[in-house]
């Protein structure tokens, strides 16, 4: 097992079908080792430092958990800034996939220069919203961001999305309600994201990997506490289920009520076309939320409700799905720290990826290409290895 972790997927084929799929997420559970004994105040910064890929989502979940365990609510300004930082992170992570991973899936070059611009905007956004680095500090003094500066960065991001991803404003893309209009856009727009969508249509792969979806619902805090306080907590963190049912926490699970996704899933099921479309819709939706919150600086705190004494939960919708942190404090220090990450739901050994891969048909080369597309559509946050063998 590597420190960064990886997901290994092996498929065994018989003739033109898949006989067996083994999905194994090998990611070390590091939170307890890293955070046990840390002071409650320091824990969220340490989380942001160590789990730095989705640092804002991780630090948000952490600080909400710590605040709840200490019975010490955040200021409304802090909640607003945290939410805006998480939105930018979701946008950055989706763009990472679209610019760097998606091109290779339809034979194009990675868009490094574009991604570089995204990373610059991400840094500017952080500096503008959290210049004093107080957003994830318990009792931190957080001021609303300077609106003109934040608007200017958001406008640059909106222009980038319009000119390089959607070829229309994100709002117009999100308003697309019909599959016909959407597929015409994919056919005639010479950009990387629509070209991937169009390549799926051309290859007749719209419905590839269509499988039943069990979306992760809101979780009851008492139920979650019971899982994570039990002797089976480690098994739950590695392979979470909802009373034995593996659920998915993906962009599709979050965006499934969008009219375009409803139409696509009715025609083609929840396969490649529907899943990649969900990522694009979520990218547009997150940008619109970011823009809206800028116009009317939000002042609500989305905190998980009641938990046991000295125990706190933080739940944040991160780029790849729901991220849950649980902390137990003793003498204002971390006694127990646990994280349930979205990759563990989505890459569960009996989860949605396995179901999708089991449905593939064709020769080994085609199955391999389709499997890679499905894995990218569900997006693990670590590298993956795919092995295909014949029975």
């Amino acid at each position, binding site marked *: 097992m*590597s*420190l*960064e*972790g990886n997901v290994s997927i092996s498929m065994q084929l018989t003739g033109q079908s898949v006989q067996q799929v083994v999905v194994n997420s090998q*990611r*070390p*559970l*590091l*939170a307890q*080792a*890293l955070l046990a004994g840390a002071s409650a105040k320091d824990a969220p910064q*340490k989380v942001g*430092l*160590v*789990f*730095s*890929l*989705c640092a804002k*989502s*991780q630090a948000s979940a952490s600080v909400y958990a710590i605040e709840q365990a200490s019975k010490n609510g955040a200021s409304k300004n802090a909640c607003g800034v945290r939410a805006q930082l998480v939105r930018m992170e979701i946008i950055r992570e989706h763009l990472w996939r679209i610019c*760097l991973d998606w091109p290779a899936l339809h034979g194009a070059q*990675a868009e*490094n220069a574009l*991604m*570089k611009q995204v*990373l610059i905007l991400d*840094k500017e956004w952080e500096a503008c919203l959290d210049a004093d680095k107080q957003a994830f500090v318990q009792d931190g003094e957080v001021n609303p961001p300077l609106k003109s500066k934040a608007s200017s960065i958001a406008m640059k991001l909106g222009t980038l999305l319009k000119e390089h991803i959607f070829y229309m404003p994100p709002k117009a893309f999100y308003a697309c309600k019909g599959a016909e209009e959407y597929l015409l856009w994919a056919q005639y727009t010479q950009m990387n994201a629509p070209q991937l969508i169009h390549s799926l249509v051309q290859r007749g792969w719209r419905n590839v990997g269509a499988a039943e979806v069990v979306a992760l619902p809101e979780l009851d805090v008492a139920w979650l506490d019971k899982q994570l306080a039990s002797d089976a907590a480690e098994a739950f963190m590695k392979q979470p289920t909802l009373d034995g049912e593996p659920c998915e926490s993906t962009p599709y699970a979050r965006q499934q009520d969008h009219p375009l996704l409803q139409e696509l899933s009715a025609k083609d099921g929840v396969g490649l076309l529907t899943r990649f479309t969900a990522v694009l819709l979520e990218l547009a939706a997150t940008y619109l939320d970011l823009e809206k919150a800028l116009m009317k600086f939000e002042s609500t705190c989305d905190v998980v409700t009641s938990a046991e004494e000295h125990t706190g939960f933080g739940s944040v919708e*991160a780029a790849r799905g729901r991220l849950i942190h649980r902390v137990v404090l003793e003498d204002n220090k971390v006694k127990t720290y646990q*994280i349930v*990450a979205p*990759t563990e739901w989505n890459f569960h050994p009996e989860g949605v990826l396995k179901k999708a891969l089991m449905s593939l048909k064709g020769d080994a080369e085609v199955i391999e290409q389709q499997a890679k597309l499905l894995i990218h559509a569900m997006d693990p*946050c*670590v*590298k993956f290895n795919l092995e295909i063998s014949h029975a």
Partner: protein
Amino acid sequence: MCLAIPARIVAIDEANDMATVTLGNVKKDISIALIEDAKIDEYVLLHVGYALHKISEEEAARTLALFDEAEILEEFAGETTEVKA
């Protein structure tokens, strides 16, 4: 778990926007196409074959100290040296 690990640049291949980085006894070749003006001895955060961004030596030291405290790096010190990302 979205872990990004600080690593030190020890060699740069400017023509291909690549660099070799080290973390303990592990060496990797990574892309530096997403960061500006990378230099030898600077620290970067790695993610799936890319340098995600540069970090200061202090920030790298703080992060590595956290891993040290938890004795995590030692646990993984026996990993095979990787030379290709």
